[in-house]
């Protein structure tokens, strides 16, 4: 069986949640595997991140290099190619760094590449059996990946339960000397933090959240009227921001805001994993969508198959009626 590595994303000395999830994914490839954590970085941050993954990995390889103080995928790829043995399986979290690193890494390691894996069914012959989603999660696919010359596999964050145990005797191997000088055609400049918007959707108990189903800019008012009646705020999924109907500060999801409302009304939102990644604290999730197969219905508490352009005004009327009765 090929050796399994997990590339660990870390920031300011803290390992990403995906670190322990990749250990679990490795066990699903080979229950007997003892995966090796791969960490790159520099200085105290690298040392702290290393300590943080001891509960999940018995062996840790580190590459310490000042050029790797910020995770530049091209530099890291060049470093990994120097140390990862041919035929290995390398696991990487499928997030913005993994998307940058993994495809090119597979080419340079001359191995197979399978991305955004949700589940793993072990190895059969020379094939790794995995599950992926397509079409925004409306359908899943069984996929086979020939790992006879190794593989790079990106794993969806949150798809595997973290694997942690009491820290065992951990071997830390410093691979820095095998890497040498690193240069890249892409250079990190700075990180620009997202601007705060007019409304802070992270502070609301109820969010009326709209997706593609709102169809056009004029219809956003339908959601705003409901939110106003409820004393809630309007948030949205990515397509609404892409279309410039609402500002980026209203977007819920991995590339937007993380919110913790008590009640989340998902209106015309299909429920992609990137969107759901922005919902924390288990809100009561009510989904309204025309498409009975929308993935949002798999995770919602209550679902209604209806056109939000009809349903939301009805709901707004009900709220107003209730308020006027209460006022009398």
């Amino acid at each position: 069986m090929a050796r399994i590595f997990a590339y660990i994303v870390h920031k300011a000395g803290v390992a990403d949640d995906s670190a322990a999830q990749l250990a679990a994914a490795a066990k699903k490839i080979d229950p007997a595997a003892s995966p090796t954590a791969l960490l790159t970085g520099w200085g105290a941050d690298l040392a702290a991140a290393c300590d943080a993954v001891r509960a999940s990995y018995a062996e840790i390889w580190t590459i310490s290099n000042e050029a790797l103080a910020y995770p530049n995928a091209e530099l890291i790829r060049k470093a990994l190619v120097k140390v990862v043995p041919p035929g290995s399986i390398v696991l990487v979290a499928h997030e913005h760094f993994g998307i940058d690193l993994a495809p090119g890494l597979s080419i340079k390691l001359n191995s197979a590449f399978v991305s955004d894996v949700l589940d793993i069914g072990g190895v059969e012959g020379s094939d790794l059996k995995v599950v992926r989603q397509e079409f925004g999660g409306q359908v899943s696919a069984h996929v086979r990946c020939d790992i006879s010359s190794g593989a790079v596999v990106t794993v969806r964050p949150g798809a595997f339960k973290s694997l942690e145990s009491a820290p065992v005797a951990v071997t830390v191997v410093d691979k820095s000397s095998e890497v040498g000088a690193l240069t890249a055609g892409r250079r990190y400049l700075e990180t620009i933090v997202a601007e705060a918007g007019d409304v802070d959707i992270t502070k609301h108990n109820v969010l009326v959240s709209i997706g593609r189903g709102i169809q056009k800019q004029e219809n956003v008012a339908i959601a705003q009227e409901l939110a106003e009646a409820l004393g809630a705020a309007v948030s949205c999924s990515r397509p609404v921001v892409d279309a410039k109907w609402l500002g980026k500060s209203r977007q819920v999801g991995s590339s937007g805001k993380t919110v913790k409302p008590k009640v989340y009304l998902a209106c015309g939102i299909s429920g992609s994993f990137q969107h759901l990644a922005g919902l924390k604290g288990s809100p009561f999730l009510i989904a309204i969508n025309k498409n009975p197969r929308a993935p949002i219905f798999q995770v919602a508490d209550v679902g209604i198959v209806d056109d939000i352009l009809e349903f939301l005004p009805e709901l707004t009327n009900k709220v107003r009626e209730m308020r006027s009765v209460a006022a009398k």
Partner: protein
Amino acid sequence: MEILVCARRVPDTSENEIELNSAGNDIERDELVYSINEPDNYAVEEALQMVARIGGNVTVVTVGGEDDEEILRREMAMGANQGVLISDEAFSGSDARGIATILKAFVRKGNYDLILTGVQAEDGGAQVGGMLAAMLDYPFASLVNSIEVLEGRKLKVSREIEGGNKEMNEIDLPCVLSIQTGINEPRYVGMRGIRAVASVPIPTFGVSELGVDPGAVGEAAAKVKRVDYFVPALGKGAEMLKGSREENADKVLELVAAKGGLK
């Protein structure tokens, strides 16, 4: 600037409910509405805007069959100077690596400063752009949501990272960028625009024109193969309200109130 945009025609999830066929091994492909993969369309728009500012040409290429010409014409109607169809029996069944191998051969035939792809296809996984860049030994940036042209054959690009933050990078040309949706507002294409380019010839490239080793592409070379599609058994799933619209609205209001949601 000579810009190449790699695009694909895919089932349009905003127009279709994707479901399994009766055999339960593939999606139901009858009556599917296809369109250009959404991020690819943003990539073409971005290329057009860059060329409008600094001059150059935009070529849109797709690997596929005759049916895929329709997206090339659509993008030419948007303003792309040329559409190119890469089509050959030998390419059928290629995995992402095979597609990147084919595109690499095409890139080598031209003289492109910048290659754009969409960040991800509806049925893909953000693969081809990064693979193509590595094969060409070009720098790569994924999830790009702004591009500024700098002096000295360089770009300043931002990448969309967590929390809506932007990671700013300088990148040397030639390079490959994968474009995120929302980077611009793609222009509208009307029927009249598409009719205007209906008879523009679209060159087609195959194995011999590209000089691709047929053994390195197609189904036989694919290391990654989709076995079938399925719909996973749901977890608990939502409790579906089956009442009239009015009854459902009453129930939702009651639930919002009960869950502490009414101010």
